[in-house]
């Protein structure tokens, strides 16, 4: 076994994708995966964390409690200058157990499979209405604005009990939070605005409880189970995580399917009721939109793949290339809606694995199962070179997708 070499980093991270390959991870990542399980990379701030590129190692490490999600610890490989949260709670995504587990369990009940499944008719209605509205509007339409963003926004608003009328406000601030190029100052301002907004909503739910998640959460505050700040923080986390991610999967997934007409045909023309569910897993794997990787800092020395990650060192699990590991998924660069891709790590792995995954799956199943059947002539209405991709985003996607039908 070798110890951590103090050799120079082998690459800058994040790495660029290849021109003309908007769905594939950066080609250098594949080389790194072939060369060695771990590599040193250099980040924007000059720090040199480990990059883990193989699927099995990523799962092992993400399940290891000796890796911390706490961004305030020295050595944490930050994606961007850290926002000042003004002491406001940021939800449990950046906390460790036991505090993480305690807070996560406050909101796990509404994401249980049975409760999410009960929302299927409501999600179907929202999807159908948004398709009706798009079809009634002018062509070309921007699929992102006309469909991909409103669907998850409407769904998360219904679940949380947030007024959709405020969507311009929270969509804009969410976007600012997930853009890598946002300055630390802007990030703080957006975060604070959202926190204030959720805090105010919590007050309203306390005064007038309704049948929604924020009311359930608010009710825990007077019972002493949850601080007011943590309640608002969890609200912000759910609102932001609940629509940006899914929206990008809808628009980028549609573009990928339009680029693979034989695969699109499986969804549009097939009669297998399980096709949409399988397609969702494969598109999650193939597109892996959380392309910045899962980021952690080691709390102790950890042996992995013949290396030692030292306590205090940063670690990035590049789940985009992990999902393209040929050891885990044969012919990994092929989009194949027929494959069983359920073991992907697009929702992460370990205790932080996506809380909203049942809801994201439901939304995507309904969208992929409905949109192309109802709009079989859907096509991209723009010069391919003009499409702009979210290379600078914490979450990958396409900024606009002009379509006609």
């Amino acid at each position, binding site marked *: 076994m070798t110890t951590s070499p103090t050799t120079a980093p082998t690459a800058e991270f994040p790495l660029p994708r290849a021109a003309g390959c908007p769905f594939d991870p950066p080609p250098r990542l594949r080389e790194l995966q072939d060369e060695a399980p771990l590599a040193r990379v250099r980040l924007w701030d000059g720090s040199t964390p480990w990059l883990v590129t193989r699927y099995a190692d990523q799962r092992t490490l993400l399940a290891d409690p000796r890796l911390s999600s706490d961004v305030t610890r020295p050595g944490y490989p930050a994606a961007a200058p850290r926002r000042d949260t003004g002491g406001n709670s940021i939800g449990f995504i950046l906390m460790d157990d036991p505090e993480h587990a305690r807070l996560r369990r406050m909101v796990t009940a509404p994401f249980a499979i049975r409760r999410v499944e009960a929302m299927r008719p409501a999600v179907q209605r929202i999807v159908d209405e948004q398709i009706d509205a798009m079809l009634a509007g002018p062509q070309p339409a921007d699929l992102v604005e006309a469909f991909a963003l409103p669907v998850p926004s409407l769904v998360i608003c219904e679940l949380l009990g947030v007024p959709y009328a405020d969507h311009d406000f929270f969509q804009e601030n969410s976007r600012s939070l997930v853009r890598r190029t946002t300055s630390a100052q802007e990030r703080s301002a957006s975060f604070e605005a959202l926190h204030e907004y959720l805090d105010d909503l919590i007050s309203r739910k306390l005064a007038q409880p309704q049948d929604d998640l924020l009311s359930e959460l608010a009710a825990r505050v007077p019972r002493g189970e949850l601080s007011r700040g943590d309640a608002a923080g969890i609200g912000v986390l759910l609102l932001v995580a609940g629509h940006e991610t899914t929206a990008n999967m809808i628009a980028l997934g549609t573009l990928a399917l339009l680029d693979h007409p034989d695969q699109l045909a499986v969804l549009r023309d097939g009669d297998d009721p399980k096709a949409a569910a399988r397609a969702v897993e494969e598109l999650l794997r193939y597109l892996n939109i959380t392309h910045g990787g899962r980021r952690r800092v080691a709390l102790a020395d950890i042996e992995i793949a013949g290396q030692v990650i030292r306590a205090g060192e940063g670690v990035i699990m590049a789940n985009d290339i992990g999902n393209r590991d040929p050891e885990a998924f044969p012919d990994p660069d092929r989009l194949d809606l027929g494959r069983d891709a359920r*073991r992907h790590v697009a929702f992460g792995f*370990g*205790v932080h694995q996506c809380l909203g*995954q049942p809801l994201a799956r439901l939304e995507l199943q309904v969208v992929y199962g409905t949109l192309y059947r109802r709009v079989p002539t859907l096509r991209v209405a723009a010069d391919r070179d003009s499409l702009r991709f979210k290379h600078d985003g914490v979450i990958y996607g396409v900024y606009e997708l002009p379509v006609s039908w």
Partner: protein
Amino acid sequence: MKVTVDQEKCVSSGQCVMSAPDVFDQREEDGVAVVLTAQPPAGQEEDVRTAAAVCPALAITVVEE
């Protein structure tokens, strides 16, 4: 085959219920997994192995007999 769930480790991802709905369920109050059939019939064994493999918290133990 015998299957157990460590409810302390469970993070309520719902992955087991998705993979093997006849064998796993979730508690009403917090979505924590419960085992419905500790000795699943032969027809469900493959689903149970999948459930154990996708469990993000490594909370499912399968003992093959």
